């Protein structure tokens, strides 16, 4: 059609103009088709739509299109305003001619076409409520698209009222030019029961070849999983009874009736804040859940009038079993043990379950394990003709599972059961037989059994016995080389002999005492001549338990002289010596020990004692823990040496002990646990010759030297004026406690009575010390002493262990007689001489003496005797012996310091309660009038009528210091009524007197007047007075203690005991008396 190029150019220009017209039509010619849009859904065809004005809407439209110049134009008529045409490779020219309108031509390029994939459809949406999982299925419609396109699927999940997008995910797939059903799972963090979940999907296909615009498809229709809150009448807490792992985050919801108000929701004991899901559903979220308790954790939803709940079990997935080990105890079952590891925290039906699977045989055993044991055990049967087992231990619980495997050859894992029924039978005194039983069929293996043999005397011994195994049978073993008469304990355990794996447990122990056997050897013997020499004493040592082989009942002692039995003796236990009458002769002594099983071989010794000379006695002190004895070698001692000693302990005969040594010995150390320090032991060394024994040496020894117990007793045998002779006795050996070194004497001037320190310690410069080292001396003379002087003498003994306590004595030296005579004679001579001189003087002056002392006419003025007479007359001025005026009698005045003394008493004797209550009770204050102190009734009256007016003057005064003030009250008020006044003699405190006075029932008026004087009481037994003067005024009154107050009338000082008049006004003593009365009398009535 288009023949030349100029035409073509013209057409192109026209098309350009047309194109521009497409966009200008809206404002241009109305009624023409406009807005041609083309969209493809499958990249093969496109749907083109256009708009037409109202004029052109009726009638048919002519639609033509051509892709290029070469292809013919395709035309068709349509009534709709949309057509589906193929997608052009580059562009397409479309001509639309509606009826009544102009023809409109459009050119559509590929880039103008938009690609929107077909809206996907959800094929299925399946919920899994226990796991809160949604499964979504849809088709990718891949068959309509070319192969290999990438498809993106956007899935949206919504929930709540109003809906909220919970999640939006994009899912990728590749289109395979086939319809493929795609599936997608989603696990909700919220149980699906809680509220409705909505799902929709759309897609986007990434067609890279397509140059036009690409877009997401529309959303698919929404699919919904309705929650329980949409179901009428449904309520509860969800999820129901879940089992979850520790640390999970959990969401629980409470679905309830529409009209019910929810109070709170708790997890365990904790309340959580709720979020509303819908009008009928609320939820809480628990983060990082802890292990629940054994019955599970309760999730409770409290409604106004109901409770809803669920129980959550939070635990751990099982640990991989550790230390899986299998062994057979009897070839019937295989016991597998393992450590379960961390507890799962789940119990009951949710507990961890174990199963044992054997791969070779394909056998499975489920294990019932108790949660109490730390090690879990599961039994698997031994299968016939199978040695190797390949075990898989499977562990599972609702949270997870684990496994552990073990390959084991059971013939190498034999752990036999504990041997039972162990019995013992005796063969003889040194051999027994053991029998035991093991349950199990060990026919294919050898058993190695271990016997434990123990006794109190020997160390534990183990004896191994290998024996072929049998089926549930009894095994035996023999034990030899036992010791007779010994209590043994036996136990047995067994294992596999060929492949040792483990010993069984020890069987129960059995005991057996072996029977007795004759003693293994003869006893160790020694003999000694008795002191008289007539008898021989035979000693033997007891045999040790290992030698005696039983209980020794007796020893048989025989005496032979050249095969002739001289004497035979049976000595019963526990004697260890016997005496044989031998006279002067000698014999061979034989001793045999005997027990119930028989006799020992004899021990022999000759009684012959060879004479010895030059026997020395040495001294020895232990070095270390034994006493060392050494001697020169005696070549002719052919059969050794014997050291014999005595364990001397005081008066009783010493128990002999001895020790034998071979003939080449020259030095031994004798040790014994019986050796004590400070005890002297005498050792004798005997040499043994074929003929007999010879004493070679004596040794005296101490284990340790101690200071002597006492000093030697000594006496002063002679005393002179300048010396004394001291003699002492030996110290008894027991008190020496060591070898004597010396004796020291200390001498010093001193009186007997004076307490002095020990002289040896006093450091007195005059101390005389004498040391006597010659121990054979038993006396000592001490010279250069002063005559008639007291000396203190001390003696002390020394050993290497120290010095003894001193022995002390006082001695007075004799007087020096010559000096004494001179001392007497000289004064006598002087007196005589003076007498002679006086006589001579008197004789010469005799005239003058006479004149002076004895004149013939005496001079009265010089008379001393007459002066005496005159003095008497002067004194007679006052001395009127015959006058009737009575002299003022000597008086005793009591100067009472009443102002202070009763006060003291008040405060001291009255309890605070009494003090406060007394003044309040006015009626009781009258009691004061009843206080009676009877005092000197008849004479006092007279004397009161004539009271001394001038007390301080004239008469002698006795100041009566108030006794009350010195009296310390010692009697508690409560105890007061119990005072036995009759028995209390001696001084009575004055106030007590008034108290006792109150007990009088009746009183004379006079007494009442006098009662205020808290009186004096004589210091004697009042009772005695009462008895002594029955007619005294007091005793007339009554027989009570008050009567005693009448008696002191005879005491001279009585009237001054009354207080002075002015003092009577003082209420205090009265008060005191009253207050006590009140206190004691009223107390019981309160």
């Amino acid at each position, binding site marked *: 059609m288009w023949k030349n190029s100029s035409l073509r150019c013209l057409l192109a220009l026209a098309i350009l103009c047309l194109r521009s017209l497409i966009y200008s039509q809206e404002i241009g010619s109305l009624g023409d088709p406009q807005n041609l849009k083309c969209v493809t859904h499958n990249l093969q065809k496109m749907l083109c739509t256009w708009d037409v004005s109202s004029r052109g809407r009726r009638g048919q439209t002519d639609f033509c299109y051509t892709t290029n110049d070469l292809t013919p134009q395709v035309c068709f008529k349509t009534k709709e305003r949309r057509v589906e045409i193929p997608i052009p490779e580059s562009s397409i020219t479309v001509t639309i001619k509606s009826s009544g309108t102009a023809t409109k031509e459009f050119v559509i390029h590929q880039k103008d076409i938009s690609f929107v994939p077909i809206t996907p459809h959800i094929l299925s949406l399946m919920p899994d409520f226990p796991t809160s999982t949604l499964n979504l299925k849809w088709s990718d419609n891949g068959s309509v698209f070319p192969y290999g396109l990438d498809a993106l699927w956007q899935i949206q999940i919504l929930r709540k009222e109003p809906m909220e997008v919970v999640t939006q995910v994009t899912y990728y797939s590749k289109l395979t030019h086939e319809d493929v059903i795609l599936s997608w799972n989603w696990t909700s963090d919220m149980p699906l029961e809680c509220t409705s979940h909505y799902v929709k999907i759309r897609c986007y296909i990434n067609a890279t070849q397509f140059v036009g615009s690409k877009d997401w498809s529309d959303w698919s229709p929404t699919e919904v999983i309705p929650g329980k809150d949409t179901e009428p009448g449904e309520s509860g807490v969800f999820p129901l009874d879940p089992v979850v792992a520790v640390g999970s985050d959990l969401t629980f919801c409470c679905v309830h009736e529409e009209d019910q108000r929810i109070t709170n929701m708790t997890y365990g004991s904790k309340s959580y804040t709720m979020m509303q899901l819908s009008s009928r559903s609320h939820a809480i979220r628990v983060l990082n859940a802890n292990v629940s*308790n054994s*019955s*599970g954790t*309760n999730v*409770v939803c409290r409604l106004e009038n*109901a409770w809803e*709940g669920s*129980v959550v079990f939070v635990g751990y997935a099982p640990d991989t079993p550790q230390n899986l080990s299998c062994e057979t105890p009897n070839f019937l079952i295989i016991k597998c043990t393992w450590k379960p590891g961390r507890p799962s925290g789940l119990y009951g039906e949710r507990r961890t379950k174990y199963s044992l699977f054997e791969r070779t045989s394909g056998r499975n055993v489920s294990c019932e394990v108790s949660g109490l044991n730390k090690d879990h055990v599961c039994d698997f049967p031994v299968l016939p003709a199978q040695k190797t087992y390949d075990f898989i231990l499977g562990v599972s619980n609702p949270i997870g599972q684990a496994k552990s495997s073990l390959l084991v050859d059971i013939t190498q894992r034999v752990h036999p059961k504990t041997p039972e029924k162990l019995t013992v039978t005796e063969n003889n005194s040194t051999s027994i037989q053991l029998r035991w039983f093991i349950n199990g069929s060990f026919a294919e293996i050898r058993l190695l059994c271990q016997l434990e043999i123990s006794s109190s005397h020997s160390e534990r011994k183990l004896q191994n016995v290998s024996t072929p195994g049998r089926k549930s049978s009894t095994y035996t073993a023999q034990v030899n080389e036992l010791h007779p008469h010994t209590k043994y304990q036996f136990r047995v355990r067994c294992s596999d002999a060929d492949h040792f794996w483990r010993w069984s447990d020890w069987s129960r122990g059995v005991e057996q005492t072996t029977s007795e056997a004759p003693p293994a050897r003869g006893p160790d013997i020694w003999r000694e001549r008795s002191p008289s020499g007539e008898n021989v004493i035979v000693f033997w040592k007891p045999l040790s338990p290992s030698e005696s082989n039983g209980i020794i009942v007796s020893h048989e002692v025989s005496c032979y002289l050249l095969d002739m039995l001289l004497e035979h003796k049976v000595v019963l236990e526990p004697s260890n010596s016997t005496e044989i009458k031998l006279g002067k002769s000698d014999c061979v002594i034989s001793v045999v020990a005997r027990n119930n099983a028989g006799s020992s071989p004899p021990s022999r010794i000759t009684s012959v004692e060879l004479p010895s000379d030059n026997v020395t006695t040495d001294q020895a002190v232990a070095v270390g823990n034994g006493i060392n004895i050494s001697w020169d070698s005696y070549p002719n001692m052919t059969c050794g040496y014997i050291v014999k000693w005595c364990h001397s302990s005081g008066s009783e005969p010493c128990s002999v002990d001895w020790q034998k040594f071979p003939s080449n010995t020259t030095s031994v150390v004798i040790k014994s646990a019986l050796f004590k320090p400070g005890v002297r032991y005498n050792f004798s060394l005997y040499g043994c010759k074929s003929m007999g024994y010879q004493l070679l040496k004596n040794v005296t020894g101490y284990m340790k030297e101690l200071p002597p117990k006492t000093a030697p007793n000594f006496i002063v045998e002679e005393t002179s004026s300048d010396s004394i002779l001291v003699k002492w006795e030996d110290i008894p050996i027991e008190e020496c406690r060591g070898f004597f070194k010396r004796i020291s004497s200390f001498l010093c001037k001193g009186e007997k009575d004076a307490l002095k320190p020990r002289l040896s310690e006093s450091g007195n410069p005059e101390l005389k010390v004498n040391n006597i080292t010659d121990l054979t001396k038993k006396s000592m003379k001490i010279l250069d002493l002063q005559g008639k002087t007291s000396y203190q003498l001390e003696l002390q003994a020394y050993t290497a262990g120290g010095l003894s306590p001193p022995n002390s004595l006082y001695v007075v030296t004799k007087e020096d007689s010559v000096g004494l005579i001179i001392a007497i004679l000289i004064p006598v001579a002087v007196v005589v001489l003076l007498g002679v001189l006086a006589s001579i003087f008197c004789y010469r002056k005799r005239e003058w003496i006479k004149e002076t002392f004895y004149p013939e006419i005496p001079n009265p003025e010089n008379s001393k005797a007459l002066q005496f007479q005159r003095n008497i007359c002067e004194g007679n001025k006052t001395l009127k012996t015959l006058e009737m005026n009575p002299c003022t009698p000597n008086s005793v005045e009591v100067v009472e310091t009443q102002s202070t003394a009763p006060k003291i008493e008040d405060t001291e004797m009255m309890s605070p309660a009494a003090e406060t209550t007394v003044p309040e009770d006015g009626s009781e204050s009258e009691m004061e009038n009843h206080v009676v102190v009877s005092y000197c009734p008849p004479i006092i009256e007279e004397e009161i009528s004539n009271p001394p007016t001038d007390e301080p003057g004239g008469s002698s005064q006795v100041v009566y210091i108030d006794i009350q003030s010195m009296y310390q009250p010692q009697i508690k008020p409560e105890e007061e009524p119990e005072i036995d006044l009759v028995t209390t003699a001696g001084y009575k405190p004055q106030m007590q007197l008034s108290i006792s006075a109150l007990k009088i029932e009746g009183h004379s008026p006079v007494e009442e007047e006098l009662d205020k004087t808290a009186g004096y009481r004589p210091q004697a037994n009042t009772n005695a007075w009462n008895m002594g003067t029955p007619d005294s005024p007091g005793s007339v009154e009554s027989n009570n203690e008050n009567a005693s107050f009448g008696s002191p009338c005879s005491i001279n000082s009585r009237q001054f005991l009354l207080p002075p008049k002015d003092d009577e006004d003082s209420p205090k003593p009265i008060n005191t008396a009253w207050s006590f009365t009140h206190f004691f009398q009223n107390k019981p009535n309160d």
Partner: protein
Amino acid sequence: SQACDSWGIFTFLCAALCNLPALPALNCSEELGAGQSIQQTYDLTRYLEHQLRTLAGTYLNYLGPPFNEPDFNPPRMARAERVPSATVDLDLWRGLTDNARLAANYRAYSRLLCYLRVLDGQVGTAELRHRLSHFCASLQGLVLSIGGVMSSLGYPLPAGPVGPPGPPGASAAPNDFLKKMDDFWLLKELQTWLWRSAKDFNRLKKKVPPAVVTLRLEARGF
């Protein structure tokens, strides 16, 4: 268990004191009379009441909060009626004959015992299981004892199956929470029944004076 001991001693002393006047009539060889078996049943009821008090404390703690909270008092759900309820009107109860009351007691404890045994099998801790089975044994004793009282009074034992309808167990309660709720109600019902039984037997005791009362030394756990 000090409280347990002292309670035991107290019960024993009370029993001893009650029976002191009757001691001269001590005669062990004679068969237990009705009065005696009533007294014994009464004592057993009191003992079970005491035993239940400690058991319930432990068990409710095992159930966990809110069951062990003192103010936990849920409304009784309709499905909990599987457990025989003791909440019968008191006047109605009083109006029953001795026979009917005893029969109701017998039926109730038989059924409670069945539930209790189920409960025993489900408990996770060994110690609690042990205590529950001990209580079950005691409750079994009470059922037998009530049967004894009934026969001594000449009443027939309630006939027919006494177990709960259908097999009790996991299928009974649809979920663990409701199961716990059942347990709670079971304990509560037991408590109420025991309290009521003690009153019943006390009243019955007064009606039937003991012919021969011996000093009983039952195993009381002290």
